[in-house]
């Protein structure tokens, strides 16, 4: 009887240990993949993937078809700061109409640009409730 009980306790203890290990693993993954929302200044300082938000400056962007890169500048409406963005991929369909663009990527100190690998595009409120395309 005690032997059975012991065996059971061991099984449970093992289970709890496994769950704890997984919890630790998940927490690490969580911290590791967390992309914080930062100001442009912080984006330039942080050596990690961050996300920044802003509006498209001058409603302008250029696409270099030889490299497949999209260049544009985000402007923080509150502070007037700007941050050049280099994005590898498709120009979002509603890019020019966006009321806000979120770029996710890492700052490239060599070129002074944020190298974005993902853009989130917010549409005007008349499309509230609507889905917006994801470009990753």
């Amino acid at each position, binding site marked *: 009887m005690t032997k059975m009980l012991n065996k059971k306790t061991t*099984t449970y203890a093992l289970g709890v240990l496994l*769950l704890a290990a*997984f919890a630790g*693993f*998940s927490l690490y*993954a*969580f911290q*590791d*993949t*967390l*992309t*914080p*929302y*930062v100001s442009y200044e*912080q984006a330039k300082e942080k050596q990690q*993937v*961050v*996300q920044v*938000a802003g509006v498209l400056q001058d409603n302008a962007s250029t*696409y270099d*078809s*030889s490299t*497949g890169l999209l260049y544009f500048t985000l402007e923080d409406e509150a502070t007037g700061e700007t941050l050049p963005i280099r994005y590898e*991929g*498709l*120009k979002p*369909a*509603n890019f*020019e*109409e966006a009321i*806000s663009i*979120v770029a*996710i990527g890492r700052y490239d100190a060599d070129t002074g640009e944020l190298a974005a690998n*993902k853009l*989130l*595009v*917010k*549409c005007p*409120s*008349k*499309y*509230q*409730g*609507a*889905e*917006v*395309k*994801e*470009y*990753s």
Partner: protein
Amino acid sequence: MLHHVSQLYLPGAVPLWGALVFAILAVWGYSLVLRGDESARVFARRAYTFFALAVTLASLVLVIELVRRDFRVEYVFQYSGLDLPIHYQFAAFWAGQKGSFLIWLLWGSLLGLGVMRTAGKAEAPVMGIYTLTVMALLFILVRENPFVMLGNTPLDGEGLNPLLQDDWMVIHPPIMFIGYALTAIPFSFAMAALWRRDFKDWAARAFPWTLGAFLVLGAAILMGGYWAYKTLGWGGYWGWDPVENASLIPWILSVVLLHGLHLERTKGRYRRANFIVATLMYLAVLYGTFLTRSGVLADFSVHSFVDLGISGWLIALMATFAAIPAVLFVTRWKQIPVVRNEDPLLSKGAFMVLSTIALGVSALVITAGTSAPLLTKYMENPGQVGPDFYNRVNLPIALLVALLLSLVPFLTWRGTPLAKVARKLVVPSLISLAVTAATVAMVVRDPFHAIFIFLAILALVTNLQKTFQRASAQGLGAAGGWLSHVGVGVILLGFLASSAYDQSTKVTLTQGEPTAVGDMEMTFTRFIPRQGREKERMEVKVVRANGEEFFTYPKLFLNERTRQVMANPDIRSSPFRDLYVSPIEFDPGVQPGAPKTVQLAAGETLEIGERTIRFAGFNLLSQARGGAMAALQRGEQISVGAMLEVVQDGQVGTAQPTYAFAQSGLVNSQPTALPGGGTAVVSGINANDGKVELQIFGLGGVEVEPARLSIDVTKKPLIQLVWFGLYVILAGGLLSMWRRLRQAREYDDVAERVAVAKQGR
């Protein structure tokens, strides 16, 4: 906000208010029944039926208003438009927040009619709780009324977001909302069982509804994946976006609940856990709704939901539907019968419990990841986690689930000796090892991937074996669960292959020039203009290494209403891989015969061919009273001529192409022949710097440039396994459903006969 009666479209608003009254009456009636007043039952049922009718009526009114294009109604104005084809008029119903709550409410109220008939003895508490859950949606709609009218009657609506103008939009959202509505039913059964302290048959009655939620949510997720992959051009079928996760979490919990209810029905185990899981499944739907509708994730989700001002309501809802079970758990916990767990580890029961824990943990980490912006809200820089998080944490869970699934076909309830399991595993393991070795020989280098493939194939083989055994011994209906397990093995292979082994190349093709892309040769052959409903397409010829030739047609077109450029991929499917061609950018180049476009200020000249064209200035042709600006403001059309002097071989000629415009934006510009050949058109004028923009046809002066098309070409191996696996999982669920419904009918027949016999006594 609440609206004054005069601001509402009454044919729709009155049924909504009526529905609220009937819902309150139904809850009141059922509470009388609960207190022992049996005569109130008929009243409560009628009240509920009228509630469902009223909701249906309100929904019909919205449909009619959308189809009539009655733009007085704000919701119709916002999501409908004159140019919208009829099926999108219907789809506009659920294009906005208010309408999507209404369709959810509609399904919820109609499903309640079925719940009423299947709840048996527990009808009063089940329907009481259930009516509260649908009433919660009704509260939101009475507050955020879809029948609010504008002060005026616009001539046209704002139209449906072009991204939503897709056939999937017509079918995917309403099915998702059936799934959401279904999750409230097992919850209501659970609460009723706790309330009545009757723990006997709720599991049997809640099972088909849970299976229904599982099937419908699964089908909706499948459609969403198709939509993302085939037309939206997201490149994949799943992006771990909050809105996607909001449907995945309840789906995973429905799988947990299905297994838990099965354990409870067959072994009397897992009772307490089932109550918790049923609660969590429903709360997960509410929480997902809160995350995606309250605006808390506005900066984090690609599905840009804007705050409607209902966050407070949604929080109150969650609190209410968490408080009810909490109170019931506390007061009933000790009375829930518990069967002691005496199963050895290698038994069906223990494995079922383990896999539900694994899936529960998966649901939990996905919830945590989706909630990251809330969890980190008070940190210095709140953030979100990317797809990488979900992939990483779910990988070990997938491996564990695959392992459990591989062994479970050989286990019995009482437990099976390890030696016996091992013996039965020999052949399936050899098969799986052989396939894994083949993949390693071909492409797979990562040892984790090899383990993943081995376990997934093992699960597939052992469960396939079991499916056949079960089906031949007890009929196809009994094999549903095992068939679903086969699907899990298949889908895991599809996940790995399509995510870790896809190859993507971005390339710019010049029209007519064959370009090497990987082992293929691609040529952008031509641009095909819009033909009727068929959008503008690009034709790309592909020649494979084996000489096979075909064309793909990625689309890149302009939505005229919003001036958005829309892109749709084209997919060439073959048995082992998809070729995914996604357009990035199209440069039309300069075609032969294209006009020379030039901007000239007064006095400036253009040398073209052997001629010199001088722009002498504008000539106001209209008799504009009070000046051109005043005339424009009166809505009159202004006509301007561009005086041109053309000099050729010393001879001077003149021409005056005209340009008429009005404040409405209307422009009328006629081509005018130039002396000595060619034509000129005024394509624009710039009042600020006095410049004219001219297009000169037929005189050359332009360099022909070929059109260019930039595309993203991706090879996605074995992606079909994802779809096929999900089909198999759902097919297994359908088989089980079919069997349960047959059993339930027999069960009801027996119950009815017993009841009749009792009454007769």
